[in-house]
């Protein structure tokens, strides 16, 4: 899974400016995603060349040999009286330099964490989001595998066991989440080739990638002074790599859909500079029993139907037709709320969607690489 890559690359160049609020966005922050993705990580970082033997719970924890890594949580929740919420908590680990940091101080680290938190209050038509950064030193941010914990200041995931049940705690100014995620019935899905997800033809330009596609979730969503008891389903993506976008890739559209029939569909469309679907776009359909069908570009047809325009003029396709003729899927994917823009260090759109058409369901959509031109 690619999402986040651009964020991480941009982080290195531009976090400072937008992270520092108040100031108008400086030029660096509007660097086009494809340009930013052109940079290659330090060659001394480990790279994903071939499938690995995953080992848990160790692999739930950090992999500092690789340049980037994330714990990516999204989900659709509903309160007892039927109020709908979408949520996102992403914790990124960024290796600034390979290897151990020079130990001149306890506050020195080569690892930095970035977090994005968002809650969509669908009924109220509001989307709340926040961003944080921290160094992996002095207890400010970090990750451990046993017991499992990833944290960035007050935001974090932790488990008393190996991974599940997983506690999610993230409050920001005016909104927050306090959730418990259970393992549910669905097994872990190894993406790509036994967990090796290739992003381009270049060897090593790949990531290790696994997902939990349907995690029963309960807890609380707070908005202002109101606290809602909620339940629903979450989705976790775990990915680490030292790869970069290829020069012909401009951005991506990523779908994570949980269908009412108990199946899940994930598909990411890498877009070429011409706006075409790149050959390394991939996806997967997870059967009710956990069996998987890999999806390649030839099997999937994606058509944007409607665009929503952000204040800066960027148009995001918030309504799609997603067809997988071979599997008899013809889905209409619509944003539950048009404005679910993540306007932080990097601008992208990520939010809850409704699925209708041949099958009904809910899910999450990420649109990246649109800001700063087509």
């Amino acid at each position, binding site marked *: 899974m690619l999402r986040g890559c651009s964020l991480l690359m941009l982080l290195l*160049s*531009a976090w400072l400016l937008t992270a520092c*609020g108040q100031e108008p966005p400086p030029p660096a922050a509007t660097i086009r995603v494809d340009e930013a993705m052109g940079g290659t990580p330090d060659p001394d970082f480990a790279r994903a060349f071939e499938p690995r033997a995953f080992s848990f719970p160790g692999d739930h924890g950090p992999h500092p040999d690789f340049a980037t890594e994330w714990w990516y949580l999204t989900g659709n929740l509903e309160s007892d009286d039927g109020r709908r919420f979408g949520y996102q908590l992403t914790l990124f680990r960024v290796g600034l330099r390979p290897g151990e*940091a020079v130990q001149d101080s*306890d*506050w020195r*680290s*080569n690892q930095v964490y970035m977090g994005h938190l968002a809650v969509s209050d669908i009924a109220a038509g509001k989307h709340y989001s926040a961003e944080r950064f921290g160094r992996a030193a002095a207890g400010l941010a970090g990750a451990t595998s046993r017991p499992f914990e990833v*944290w960035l200041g*007050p935001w974090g995931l932790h488990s008393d066991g190996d991974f599940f049940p997983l506690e999610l705690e993230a409050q920001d100014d005016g909104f927050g989440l306090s959730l418990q995620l259970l393992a549910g019935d669905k097994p872990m899905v190894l993406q790509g080739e036994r967990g090796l997800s290739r992003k381009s033809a270049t060897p090593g330009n790949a990531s290790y990638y696994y997902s939990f596609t349907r995690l029963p979730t309960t807890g609380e969503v707070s908005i202002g002074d109101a606290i809602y008891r909620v339940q629903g389903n979450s989705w976790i993506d775990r990915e680490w790599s030292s790869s970069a976008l290829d020069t012909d890739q401009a951005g991506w559209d990523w779908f994570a859909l949980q269908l009412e029939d108990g199946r899940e569909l994930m598909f990411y469309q890498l877009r070429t500079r011409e706006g075409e679907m790149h050959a390394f776009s991939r996806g997967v359909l997870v059967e009710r029993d956990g069996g998987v069908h890999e999806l390649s570009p030839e099997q999937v047809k994606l058509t944007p139907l409607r665009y929503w325009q952000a204040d800066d003029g960027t148009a995001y396709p918030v309504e799609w037709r997603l067809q997988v003729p071979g599997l008899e899927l013809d889905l209409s994917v619509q944003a539950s709320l048009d404005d679910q823009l993540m306007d932080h260090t990097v601008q992208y759109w990520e939010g809850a969607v409704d699925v209708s058409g041949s099958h009904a369901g809910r899910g999450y959509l990420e649109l990246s690489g649109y800001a700063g031109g087509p």
Partner: protein
Amino acid sequence: MFSPLLLRAGLRYMLRHRWQGLLALTGIVLGVAVVLAVDLANSGARAAFELSAQQLQGKATHRLVMPGGTLPDEVYVALQRQSGAPPMAPVVNGWVEIEGWPGRLRLAGFDLFAEGPFRSELAGVSSQVGFTTDWLTQPGALVLGESLARALDVAEGESLDVLYRGKSATLTVLHVDSSASAVADDLLLVDIATAKSVLQMEGELSYVDLILDADAEAWIRQRLPAGVELQTALEQAQGVTRLSAAFELNLTAMSLLALLVGMFLVFNAMTFSMVQRRNLFGRLRAIGVTSRELFRMVLLEALILAVLGTLIGLLLGVWLGQGLTRLVAATVSELYYNVSVTALVLDTGSLLIAIALGVLATLIATLVPAWHAARTPPLTTLSRSALEQAARHAVPLWGLFGVALLLIGLTLALVLPGGVIMSFAGLFSLVLGAAMMTPMVIRLLHSLLARAAPPGIWRMGVRDLDRHLSRLGIAVAALMVALSASVGVGVMVESMRGSVNTWLSDLLNADLYVAAEGFDQGAQLTPSLVEDVARLQRVDAISRYRERKLPIDGRRVEVIGAHLAEPSRQGFALLSGASSAWQAFDEGAVLVSEPLAWHLGLAPGDTLELPTVDGPLVVKVAAVFRDYASEHGRVFMDEKLYERVWPGQPLNTLALFARDGDVEAMRREVSELAAEHAIVITSAGAILRESMAVFDRTFRITEVLRILSLIVAFIGVLSALMALQLERGKEYAVLRALGLTRGQIAGLISGESLLMGLLAACVALPVGILMAWVLIESVQRRAFGWTMPFGVDGVLLMQTVLVGLLAAGLAALYPAWRSAHADPAPQLRED
């Protein structure tokens, strides 16, 4: 409105008497310029201080500190992990030294990830790709401002060695920030990890900045660990601004002086121009111009002059201000820390005062004569003596008014309770009163002189002065103000210098002082060194000192735990509680410095609360001692008590007394230790010399401003004399015709002028001494809390008289030369 004729008459007059108009203009220009320049220099220095403080403070509303110590990392780490935590930014900073660099520089360590809401300029210093990586991962990565980089002669990629507590660390310039004022000029900006490493503060923070609203404040207060204090930004700002209080006071006094001199210059110029024109006014009235028209014309003319003069004055003031600002910045840099006033701060207040002075003072100065000119019957107006007579009648009135102001001033400054502002108001009133009294005093002195004067030219000169009182009175008063201020400030500085010298010589009575290497007062001696020194043969007695700063009542009080050898005790000048004070000291009471005692109203027997981690420590005051070391105050306590309250703190300084007075032998012994330990050995004499050098540097700016005010007063006298001599051209022609030689005419003019200078100086001496008294007893006392014996230096007084004479003599040169060389014939033919 006026008839065009009237306007043309006014204009023609001005054109024909260019000199007079020009002199009036000069007066206004100079007055405005001096006031603006001094004010600009002051606000420039203040702005530099504030910029520095503000950059460190950013948008923080509160700060978490550990009184008297550093904040453990855990306090911050634990707080920032809790849900609902407000924005917080940890800071590690300290002062470092760079070899070959005179001042100290602040090494400030921030966590840029936490800085966003706080110091966006600081956080935003770089936008280059890769910057973040190097900043975070490369030890010693440094960002600094362009002007500091230039001053230190370092460029990006080059390294810079800094010293902290005797240890050297290498920083590498990652980025030189060229955006204006993003990085203050005394700041070495580093990542917090680098700061912790260089400043040896592992596990510790200097403080944590917070942005709190009422809810968040309550949130934090509920979670404050024991010993941690939440301070408001206001409390912080006070601490920073206090640092410069002494210096600023100095500048304020000078501003005030400039304002006074400026006022007199403007008054002088305008009154003069009015007096000279009574003749024209008389003629105009005689040909039927109504008094109302005349009044309006005069005011309009004054307004034009005022606006023109003020505009030129503002330009000149800005130009002059730049020079002065640089000088002030240089002094601040040497005394406190590096600031550079790159941009002139055109402060609205300064401009308004200067404009008000230029316009209002000019108009007010015009009002009375204009009213006079308009009201008096034409014939009287034409008469030369009428105005002089009026002026003479007014002299006693002004004098009485002056006496009243003087008394009010003294009451404000010395009798009524109040702060420094009150003292300054009193001082201002005093000087103004004295200036108003000047013509009366001149009249009195004159009547004495006239009786004693030898016959001939001399007597003529004396008489003339009285006759021209209306024209010269104000010029003499202006000179008097400048001279008296010079005496006042001079006597104050001298008294203080003498007191500081005596105090230091008494206090620094040990033969040698040993401190750890490094500029910092916090530099610490290793315990092994202390043992080694104690074992030395040639050392007879040792006094030991360790210190820390504690916040007491918004002041940063130095608390010193000392083991004092007998001779060290004798160095203290105890002001009260002398008997049995040392016994009380040994039993746990403390010695309090005079400034602290003054501000807290402490007397021997009172108690004082010192903040500690375990809550306040209540100590008894044994005695109050004279101290000029810190306006914030100092507290001496016995080493044993200090150790109990703040255990484990290494010593800062040792004072050594040589056995049998053989200092050289002891120095050799101690020097051998210096090879193993990073220590500095200093003699009392060297410390004294250095301290006095610092003292002199502090007051160097005072000297410059004193001279400046004298120059301005000199120009005032010159212009008054010039105008007078020009006007009296005909009178001199008559005198020449009567047989006076050129030399005699020149002598007459010079004699009159010198007499003027002498009279001004005679009045200035007592007024100046009075000013000094107010400055010492009221201003210094209220601002700093210290007292000092009053010492008047005869040389200074003599100097003042000479300067007065010199100014007056020089001012007379050109008028004397001109009048003596003028051809009397055309002048006589005119009538």
